C-alpha cells in the first residue's frame, strides 16, 4: 500500500510520474529551454556588448583628462546625437598656458569614406565613417600607430587596421577619401583603437591637421573639440576648474571621465538599448508562444491521468496532495529546462559574438560577460512561465473526483460553451471598434493599442469555438480529396476543440506577429514608393548615405558640375542642416530653392521660392499651420554657432515628403554650416534626352566625385525601401524561434493524442488501414491544426498591422498595403510546417502494435 502522508508522498508521486512520463514532457522541456535560451542569450549578449564598448571607450579616452568643446548642441528628435558647433583652435594656445596642463591639441572629427582596393566605398551602412586630424600626442589620441608612421605631409593618412583590412589596403597604397569631395590620399600608417582593430565597425582615417581643417571643417582654424592632458598630480576636476575661467562664452570644459561616459552612453543608449530591446521583445513573443504550448501539454497530460489521480483520491490522497504533486512535477521540469536554457543562452551569446562581425555588425571581441540579472531573470521567467502554465491544469487535477476512476475517460467536449462564444465575439467586436476609433481621425496610439490588445485577447478566448467551425470549413475539401483518411483527420482535429485551439493559438500568435511586420513593412515600402513617385519630379537621383548613417554624403560641387552637362536641364543638390526654431531642433533642407521646384513636386506653393536669398526661408504647410505662419511672417532661427537670425517666411509649400519641412538657401546656410555635404542631387534632363543617355552622362560625371549611386526615379523609389527589407529579414529570423516553439507544440499535442488513441489506431489498422494511410491521417490532422493557426494569425496580424499603420500615421500620408505574395508564402510555410510537425507523431503512430488495440484488458 502506498503511504500517503503529506508532502513527501506528493514528492514521491511527482518523481515517479516524471520518470514514467518523461517522453511526454519532452515538448514542454524543449519549449522552456528554447524560450529561456533566447532570453538569456539576448541579455548576456547585451551585457557583453555593453562591457566591451565601455572598455573600448575607457581605453581609448584614458589619456584625455579634460575636453573643451562648444556648449551648444542642437539635436533634432529621433536624429542621433545632435550637432555641436566647432571651437576656435587658437584656444589651444591659451589652454596650454593654464598651470597643470601638460598638453592640449585641436581635435577635428568629420566624416570621410575611403574607397577600397576594389573601387567600392568601405563601410557607410550604419556605423560611422570617421575622418579626423592625427594628434601627435599619443595620450590624447585614442588611436595608436601600430605600423608605419603618422601623416607628415598633405595627402598622407593613417587608417585604422580594421578599415585597411576591409578595403584590402596596405601601407603605400593610394586611394580616394570622400570628404565628400574626393581627396587623393596615400596610406602611411595603420592604427589601433583601444587595442582593437578599430572602434567597433566604424572606419577611421587620420590626416594632417592642415588637411583635416581644409576638407572637414567649414573654416580653417576650427576644431571639433580640444582634448587636454593634465600634469601628474593634477586631478581631472582640478584641471577643469582651472581651464574653465579662460574659456569664452559658448565654450565648455568637461572631465575626461564624463566624456568617456557620454560616449559610452551614446552607444549603449542609442544603438545597444534599441538592439537589446528589440531582441527582448522577440524573446518575449517566443516565451508567450511557449506558455500556450506548455499549458496545453500539462492540460493534456493531466487529463490523460485523470484515472490515476482519481485512484489516488479514492485511496485517500487529499486534493492538495494531488495538486502539490502536479506542481512539483511542473517545477522540476521548469528548473531543469530553465537551467539548461541558461547554458543555451551562453551558447547563443557566444555564437552571435562570433557571427555578427562576419555580417558587418559592430561587436567588439572580448570575453562573454554575464551579469547576475542575466542569470536570475531568465531562470525566474522560465520557472514562472512553466509553473504558471501548469497551475490551472493542476488545480483541475486536484479537483478530480475519486469516482472518476470508475468512469471511462470521456472525450473533452468542453471549450465550446455559449459563454465563451458570446465573450469572444463581443470582445472582438469591441476590440475592433476601439481600434478603428483609435486609428481614425486624429490617431490615438493608446486607444488603438488597447483595442488591438483586446482584439488579440478575444481571438484567443474565441479560439476553441472558432476551431470547430474553422476546421470544419478548412477540412471540408480534405474529406472530399483524401477520402476516409482525410475525413478521419478532420474528425480527429475536431475532437477536443479546446486542445486544438490551444495548440493552434501558439502558432497563431507567431504567425500574427510575422504578418503584422509583413503588412507594416509593405505599407512602409508603399508609403516610401508613393512619396518618391509623388514628390520626385526629376529624371535621375544621385545619392549617397549621409552623415548619420555613416558615409560621407555627396560633394556639394557635384550638383553644379552636373548642371553644366548638355543633357541636364536642372541639377539641384539637397544638403541637410539643423537650427533651433521656436526652441526645438529642426532639420533644414539646404538647396537652391528656385531650382528645387523643377525637380521635386512641392504641391501648391504660396509665395515664391525664387529669391529667398539670405533673408527668407520656405516652410511646409504643415509647419506653417502649426506655427500659424503665412507668407510674410517672420521667425528666428538659432544656429549651432550660437548666432540667431530672423527670417521671413518667403514661401509655403504643400508637399514636404522629400523637401522636408524647412528649406533654406545655400547662401543663407553657408555662414553657419559644418562639414559641407549633400545627401541627394536631383537631376532633370532637357527635353529629347533619353533616359539611358542622360543617366550615362550623369554617371560619367559623378564617377569622379567618389562614384555615388545614380538611379532613375523607379530605382530610387525602390532603393529607398530596401532598408525595410533588411529590417524584415531580421524580424523574420527573430520570429523563427517562436514559430518553431509553436510547431513543437503541435508535435507534442499530436504525440500525446496518438498515445491516447492507441486502441483506436490499432482497430483502424486491424480493419485495413495501411501504415501509409495512418501516417497521412496524422499528418493531415497536423496540417489542419496548423492551417487553423496560420489563417487565424494571418487575419489577426493583418488587422493589427492595419491598426499599427493607422496609429503611427499622424499626417494621413501613410499608405496601407497588404502584400498578397508574401502572405501566401506565410500561409504555405504554415501548412508545410504543419506537415513537418506531424512527421514524428505520424511515424510513431505507424509503429504502434496492432494487437494492443485488439487485446482485451
Amino acid at each position, binding site marked *: 500500500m502506498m503511504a500517503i502522508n503529506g508532502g513527501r508522498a506528493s514528492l514521491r508521486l511527482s518523481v515517479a510520474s516524471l520518470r514514467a512520463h518523461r517522453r511526454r514532457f519532452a515538448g514542454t522541456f524543449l519549449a522552456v529551454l528554447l524560450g529561456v535560451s533566447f532570453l538569456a542569450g539576448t541579455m548576456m549578449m547585451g551585457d557583453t556588448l555593453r562591457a566591451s564598448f565601455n572598455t573600448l571607450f575607457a581605453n581609448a579616452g584614458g589619456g584625455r583628462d579634460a575636453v573643451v568643446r562648444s556648449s551648444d548642441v542642437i539635436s533634432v528628435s529621433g536624429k542621433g546625437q545632435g550637432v555641436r558647433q566647432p571651437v576656435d583652435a587658437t584656444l589651444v594656445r591659451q589652454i596650454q598656458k593654464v598651470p597643470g596642463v601638460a598638453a592640449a591639441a585641436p581635435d577635428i572629427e568629420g566624416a570621410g569614406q575611403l574607397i577600397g582596393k576594389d573601387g567600392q566605398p568601405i563601410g557607410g551602412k550604419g556605423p560611422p565613417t570617421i575622418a579626423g586630424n592625427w594628434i601627435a600626442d599619443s595620450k590624447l589620441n585614442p588611436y595608436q600607430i601600430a605600423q608605419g608612421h603618422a601623416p607628415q605631409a598633405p595627402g598622407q593618412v593613417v587608417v585604422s587596421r580594421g578599415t585597411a583590412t576591409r578595403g584590402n589596403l596596405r601601407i603605400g597604397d593610394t586611394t580616394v577619401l570622400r570628404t565628400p569631395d574626393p581627396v587623393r590620399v596615400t596610406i602611411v600608417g595603420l592604427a589601433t583603437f583601444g587595442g582593437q582593430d578599430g572602434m567597433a565597425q566604424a572606419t577611421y582615417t587620420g590626416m594632417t591637421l592642415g588637411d583635416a581643417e581644409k576638407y572637414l571643417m567649414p573654416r580653417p582654424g576650427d576644431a571639433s573639440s580640444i582634448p587636454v592632458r593634465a600634469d601628474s598630480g593634477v586631478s581631472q576636476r582640478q584641471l577643469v576648474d582651472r581651464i574653465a575661467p579662460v574659456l569664452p562664452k559658448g565654450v565648455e570644459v568637461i572631465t575626461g571621465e564624463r566624456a568617456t561616459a557620454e560616449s559610452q552612453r551614446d552607444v549603449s543608449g542609442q544603438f545597444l538599448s534599441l538592439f537589446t530591446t528589440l531582441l527582448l521583445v522577440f524573446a518575449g513573443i517566443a516565451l508567450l508562444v511557449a506558455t500556450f504550448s506548455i499549458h496545453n501539454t500539462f492540460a493534456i497530460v493531466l487529463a490523460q491521468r485523470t484515472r490515476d489521480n482519481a485512484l489516488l483520491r479514492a485511496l485517500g490522497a487529499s486534493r492538495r496532495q494531488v495538486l502539490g504533486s502536479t506542481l512539483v512535477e511542473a517545477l522540476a521540469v521548469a528548473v531543469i529546462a530553465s537551467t539548461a536554457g541558461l547554458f543555451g543562452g551562453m551558447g547563443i551569446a557566444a555564437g552571435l559574438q562570433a557571427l555578427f562581425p562576419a555580417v558587418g555588425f559592430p561587436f567588439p571581441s572580448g570575453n562573454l560577460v554575464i551579469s547576475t540579472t542575466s542569470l536570475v531573470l531568465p531562470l525566474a521567467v522560465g520557472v514562472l512561465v512553466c509553473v504558471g502554465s501548469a497551475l490551472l491544469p493542476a488545480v483541475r487535477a486536484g479537483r478530480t473526483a475519486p469516482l472518476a476512476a470508475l468512469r471511462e475517460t470521456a472525450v473533452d467536449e468542453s471549450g465550446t460553451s455559449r459563454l465563451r462564444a458570446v465573450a469572444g465575439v463581443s470582445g472582438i467586436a469591441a476590440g475592433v471598434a476601439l481600434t478603428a476609433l483609435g486609428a481614425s481621425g486624429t490617431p490615438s496610439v493608446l486607444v488603438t493599442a488597447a483595442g488591438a490588445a483586446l482584439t488579440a485577447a478575444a481571438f484567443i478566448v474565441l479560439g476553441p469555438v472558432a476551431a470547430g467551425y474553422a476546421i470544419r470549413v478548412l477540412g471540408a475539401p480534405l474529406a472530399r480529396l483524401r477520402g476516409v483518411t482525410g475525413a*478521419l483527420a478532420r*474528425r480527429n482535429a475536431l475532437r477536443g476543440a479546446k486542445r486544438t485551439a490551444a495548440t493552434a493559438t501558439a502558432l497563431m500568435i507567431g504567425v500574427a506577429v510575422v504578418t503584422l511586420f509583413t503588412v507594416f513593412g509593405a505599407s512602409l515600402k508603399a508609403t516610401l514608393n508613393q512619396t518618391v513617385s509623388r514628390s520626385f519630379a526629376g529624371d535621375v537621383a544621385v545619392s549617397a548615405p549621409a552623415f548619420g548613417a555613416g558615409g560621407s554624403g555627396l560633394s556639394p560641387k557635384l550638383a553644379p558640375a552636373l548642371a553644366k552637362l548638355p543633357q541636364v536641364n536642372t541639377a539641384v543638390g539637397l544638403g541637410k542642416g539643423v537650427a533651433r526654431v521656436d526652441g526645438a531642433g529642426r532639420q533644414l533642407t539646404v538647396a537652391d530653392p528656385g531650382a528645387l521646384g523643377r525637380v521635386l513636386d512641392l504641391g501648391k506653393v504660396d509665395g515664391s521660392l525664387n529669391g529667398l536669398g539670405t533673408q527668407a526661408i520656405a516652410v511646409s504647410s504643415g509647419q506653417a499651420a502649426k506655427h500659424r505662419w503665412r507668407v510674410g511672417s517672420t521667425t528666428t532661427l538659432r544656429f549651432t554657432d550660437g548666432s540667431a537670425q530672423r527670417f521671413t517666411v518667403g514661401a509655403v509649400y504643400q508637399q514636404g515628403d522629400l523637401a522636408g519641412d524647412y528649406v533654406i538657401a545655400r547662401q543663407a546656410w553657408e555662414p553657419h554650416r559644418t562639414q559641407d555635404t549633400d545627401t541627394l542631387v536631383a537631376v532633370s534632363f532637357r527635353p529629347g534626352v533619353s533616359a539611358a543617355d542622360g543617366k550615362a552622362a550623369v554617371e560619367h560625371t559623378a564617377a569622379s566625385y567618389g562614384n555615388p549611386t545614380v538611379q532613375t526615379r523607379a530605382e530610387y523609389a525602390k532603393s529607398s525601401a530596401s532598408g525595410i527589407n533588411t529590417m524584415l529579414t531580421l524580424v523574420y529570423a527573430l520570429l523563427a524561434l517562436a514559430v518553431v516553439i509553436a510547431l513543437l507544440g503541435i508535435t507534442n499535442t499530436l504525440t500525446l493524442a496518438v498515445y491516447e488513441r492507441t*486502441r*483506436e489506431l490499432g*482497430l483502424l489498422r*486491424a*480493419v485495413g488501414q*495501411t501504415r501509409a494511410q495512418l501516417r497521412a491521417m496524422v499528418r493531415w490532422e497536423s496540417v489542419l491544426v496548423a492551417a487553423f493557426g496560420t489563417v487565424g494569425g494571418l487575419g489577426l496580424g493583418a488587422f493589427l498591422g492595419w491598426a499599427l499603420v493607422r496609429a503611427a500615421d499622424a499626417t494621413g500620408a501613410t499608405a496601407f498595403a497588404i502584400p498578397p505574395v508574401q502572405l501566401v508564402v506565410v500561409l504555405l510555410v504554415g501548412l508545410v510546417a504543419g506537415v513537418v510537425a506531424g512527421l514524428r507523431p505520424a511515424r510513431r503512430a505507424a509503429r504502434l502494435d*496492432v494487437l494492443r488495440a485488439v487485446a*482485451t484488458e
Partner: protein
Amino acid sequence: MTAADTVRTIAPAAQVRDAVKVYGSGDTEVRALDGVTVDFPAGRFTAIMGPSGSGKSTLMHCVAGLDTLTSGSAYIGDTELGTLGDRQLTLLRRERIGFVFQSFNLVPTLTVAENITLPLDLAGTRPEPGLIDELIDVIGLRDRLRHRPSQLSGGQQQRVAVARALAGRPDVVFADEPTGNLDSRSGAEVLELLGDAAHGMGRTVVMVTHDPVAASHADEVLFLADGRLVDRMERPTADRVLDRMKEFDGPSRQEARS
C-alpha cells in the same frame, strides 16, 4: 453421409499447419501455440473454446494476419501469410477478412454508417449494391445510422461491428469473444447474426469464446488447451460443450497433454 463429411471435402477458407507461437524467451518463455494444425472449412461457423490462456486469441490473431507465427504456416484460402509484408497483410485483412472484437470495435469519431463501410472506404471501393442496405436491415439499426458509437448500447455496437465485418464480403469473419461483454439477450442477437452470416450468406465464421451457450450456435467446436488442439465437436449443444469443458479441470487434462 453426414453433413460434416460433405463439408470436409470442400477446400478450407483458412488453416494453420504446425502452428507454434512463442512469446518471450528464456525464463519468461510462453508457448502460446504448441503445434496446432487445423482448418476452417468454407461456409461453416466454427467456435474455438478452451480455458483462459489456452491460446485461443493467439490462434485467431495468427490466422487472421494480425500476428505472425514463430514457426508453422497459416493460410487464408491459398495465401500463405508468412510470406506477406505489413502492407500486403493489411490489404488482405481489409479485403478478405472481417473482424469483431470483444470491445472497442468502432471508431468513435465515425457514425454508424461510416463505421460499417470503413474497410471499403479505406480500400476506396464501392460496396456491393444493396448489400449495405440489407445488412442495416439485418442488424435493425436503420434509424441509428447517423449516430456515434457512444450513443449506442453495447449490443448495438457489436451488431454494427458484425455488419462492418460482413460489408466487404470477406472470405472469413473472425470474432474474438464477441459476446463477452454483453447480456444474454444482446449476446443471442449477435450470435444469430454470425450464424446467419455463415448459413444465410455463405461466409466462413470463426469465433473464439469461452461461453458454452455461444459455442452451441456453431457448426463445430474446437477445443484448445495449453496451446494444443485437444478435441473437436460437431453440432454442439451447450450441455455437451459444458461437459467437455469440465473435463479440462479433471484428470483428463493430463491425458490431453500427453
